[in-house]
């Protein structure tokens, strides 16, 4: 093995001099404690490397060329990961070497990291109208799973009622994550409206209920009446936990305003590329109630004065909550998650400002409404919850066309269009339906083109 650019001391002369300095004959000596039976006998059987950066790049670019991506196609996929325009400044900031390669420094050497994350939390706090926001967890699903555990610890109860129009993946994460200490019950939603069945819900909530968990907007794009849900949950002493699309908060009320106790969601839509699902990041927020704050497993950063008057410093709030401090006696666990996306979302919120967030959400509502009208006009196509309001997404039913969603999507793909997410497996009750998502990336022409392509596809 020649000297490798990533391994400076692989220079033979240097390596040998260092071995001499420590009095070792070879690096084998350092592994003396590893019994022979545990040692690998041959080299690792992995593919031959591309040692030069030039050939490595060519190899990986060749792989990536096998992908087709949403910047070159027309995509209407959503369902938890959303295509938005990512401001160049977001990429610039998260591409900075300093942020990209920092990790766990102290509040002094990493003052900027602490401040950037504190500011992210603070801006999320304004969006959510809540005083406490955590440093990001892995994704919105993890955030949801943690919020109901927080509710469980806070209330000392086991039962969690989950709105039935939840992303089934999210439900799976919550169940696996929580089931040692929580019992999950699904609340049904109305077929016609796509909204929760309030009567059924009332029957499910009881004095053992720790939390009612609901996504607003729901996985299907519908918008339940939060105040009614809050009343129902609070009536039995349960917490209302709301999962929210942060982009929707430019037009929808922050859950705190209608009584949510804990709010969570995913920050991916806030200036983070989709990255095949690698752009997710979870947030959790609440009021500044110490009893709730002490239930967070995540890191919480706080601003404090320093020894120099007028200067700000930052640090960990109530560190003793965490598994870092208390191992199994801390709350859940904490580790490396999605901090860089938190910083990025902060940049996004600062760029957008109040007016930008309102315009972004309003534009999406308008495009969604327009798309609903246009799609509903296509013969054989039905907007499933047409009478309800939607944010960003809605369910489109294709049964009238006689074609399964899979066939329609395959035909759309041939025309350079990624059709909506096929719901027929996860929500068989919805029949041959797909979830279509819209954002500010779509022009009227794009939506019209979708409809024209669908008409053509269906007509064939």
């Amino acid at each position, binding site marked *: 093995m020649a000297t490798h650019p990533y391994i400076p001391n692989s220079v033979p002369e240097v390596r040998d001099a260092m071995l001499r300095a*420590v009095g*070792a004959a070879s690096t084998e000596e350092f592994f003396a404690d590893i019994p022979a039976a545990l040692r690998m006998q041959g080299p690792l059987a992995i593919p031959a490397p591309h040692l030069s950066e030039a050939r490595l790049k060519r190899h990986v670019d060749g792989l990536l060329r096998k992908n087709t991506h949403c910047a070159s196609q027309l995509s209407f996929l959503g369902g938890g990961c959303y295509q938005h325009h990512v401001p160049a400044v977001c990429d610039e900031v998260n591409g900075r070497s300093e942020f990209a390669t920092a990790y766990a420094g102290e509040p002094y050497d990493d003052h900027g990291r602490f401040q950037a994350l504190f500011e992210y939390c603070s801006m999320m706090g304004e969006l959510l109208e809540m005083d406490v926001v955590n440093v990001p967890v892995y994704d919105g699903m993890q955030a949801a799973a943690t919020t109901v555990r927080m509710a469980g610890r806070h209330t000392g109860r086991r039962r969690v009622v989950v709105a039935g129009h939840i992303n089934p993946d999210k439900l799976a994460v919550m169940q696996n994550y929580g089931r040692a200490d929580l019992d999950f019950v699904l609340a049904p939603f109305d077929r016609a409206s796509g909204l929760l069945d309030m009567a059924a819900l009332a029957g499910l909530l009881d004095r053992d209920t720790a939390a009612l968990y609901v996504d607003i907007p729901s996985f299907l794009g519908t918008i339940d009446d939060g105040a009614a849900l809050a009343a129902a949950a609070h009536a039995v002493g349960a917490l209302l936990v709301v999962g929210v699309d942060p982009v929707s908060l430019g037009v929808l009320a922050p859950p705190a305003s209608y009584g949510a106790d804990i709010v969570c969601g995913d920050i991916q839509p806030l200036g983070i590329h989709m990255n095949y699902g690698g752009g997710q990041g979870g947030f959790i927020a609440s009021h500044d109630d110490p009893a709730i704050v002490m239930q967070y497993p995540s890191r919480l950063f706080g601003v404090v004065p320093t020894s120099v008057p007028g200067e700000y410093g930052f640090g960990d709030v109530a560190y003793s909550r965490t598994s870092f401090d208390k191992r199994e006696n801390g709350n859940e666990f904490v580790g490396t998650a999605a901090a860089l996306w938190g910083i990025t979302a902060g940049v996004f919120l600062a760029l957008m400002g109040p007016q930008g967030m309102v315009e972004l959400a309003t534009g999406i509502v308008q495009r969604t409404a327009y798309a609903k009208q246009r799609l509903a006009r296509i013969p054989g196509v039905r907007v499933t919850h047409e009478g309800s309001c939607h944010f960003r997404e809605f369910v489109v039913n294709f049964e009238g066309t006689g074609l399964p969603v899979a066939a329609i999507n395959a035909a759309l793909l041939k025309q350079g269009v990624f059709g909506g997410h096929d719901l027929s497996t996860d929500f068989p009750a919805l029949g041959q339906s797909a979830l279509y998502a819209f954002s500010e990336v779509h022009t009227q022409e794009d939506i019209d083109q979708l409809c024209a392509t669908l008409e053509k596809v269906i007509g064939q």
Partner: protein
Amino acid sequence: WDEPVIFELSQPGERGILLPEVEPEIARAAGQALAALPASMRRQNPPRLPEMSQNRVLRHYLRLSQETLGADLNVDVGQGTCTMKYNPKINDQLARQPAMTELHPRQPDSTVQGMLEVIAKLEGVMCEVSGMDTVSLQARGGSQAIFANMSMVRAWHESRGEAAQRDEVITTIFSHPSDAACAKLVGYKVITIYPDADGYPDLEALKAAISPRTAALVITNPEDTGIFNSRIREFVDAVHAVGGLCVYDQANANGLLGIARAREAGFDLCHFNLHKTFATPHACGGPAVGAVCCTAALAPFLPGPLVREKDGCYQLVPGGAQSIGKISSFAGAAGIILRAYAWVMNLGADGLRAVSEIAVLNNNYMMHELLKIDGMSAPYAPGKRRIEQVRYSWKALCDATGVTSEEIGFRAADFGLHYWTSHHPYLVPEPATIEPTESYSRTDLDEFISVMRHIAGEARSNPDLVKTAPHNCPTHRVQGEMLDDPERWGITWRAYQRKLGERGLA
């Protein structure tokens, strides 16, 4: 820079970016699209975000970046257990292309063949490096991988009808806090083994702890002390003998690539942190990936979706009937997977082995030199070599001068270096964990050593200088007690402003 908090930079009316216009026909058709909603579901006032020009937003964050000491900027060997190594820029460049960043995770498999191939091939590498049979890259961090492993342990015992009986997990105090925490989270009672006099996990204590109630052993090796536990196979065999599983926390495997594997030591499950051993950037704390590896026996319990190849085509298939379900969204942090793949493909088998050999050489060189400093020691196993890191103790220096390890870290920041004490609890008094990895040259190591020697000298000649550090950082010693006081902590600016108004602070 004396950069204000971002809200202080707000100028009403300024815009950072403009949104696409809504075409008139859309606006007309949409009308009042949300009019049917209850009024309480409509936002009444725009969020009180800062209002700033784009230039000012950028300047703010660039200044904050310069106030952040990334691994790229310093000799980052003082952040032990974290495997701070060089994260090649080519990997970032590759991963920041639209063919990676603009992929939606629900795209048809036929349109993401390159991505799926990368996942499949990196899984193959992980199999080979661990000796395990199957891998999932869905976990978005090391702790989540630990959690996945513990979930699989639970599912395994459930599948065998022993879940009720087996309610204990054994770990060691020098294993990562998340090993204990995740075991607890999935419902286990945690039994913690402490080291014996030589710093090894106490085999006798283990033998006393195991029983038919044992669900699993979760253990690191080498532990954070850097000492390899030669009797690891005996630990594993003992746990297997009572029907428990063995889980190897290989978050940091930087000293063992191509040297020793989980397979040969008999483990059932293990995990790697791609942001440690496999050189993906730490990113201020994620995004990241934890590679969950297991034997064929445990494979049915892996989370879905899984990548499968058939006739040269890759596809995502759901987890099986016994799957623990989902651990995180979609197929995980794909951009990180791509970076790690590129790193491995640049090094190959010889390169990976060289990584470990030089990382271990660097560590032993560092130990050899640091132990010459009066007041520093490396507890346990005297005279033994270490693998990839060492847990040191400044107890002697602290006893002599009153300067603590934490204060040494604050002072090290004045010299542009990171330095970390250790995970709690501080079993080793006044601990420091130093891990040089393979990325630093002898000159770099010597620079770090000389700073440590210098600070140790200051501790003796001018302890106040160290005890009041930092002096040369963007900020000064914080009033830390506020952070534990619910009346005074300020977790957001709005909370801080409110409390400041309500009762004053500081």
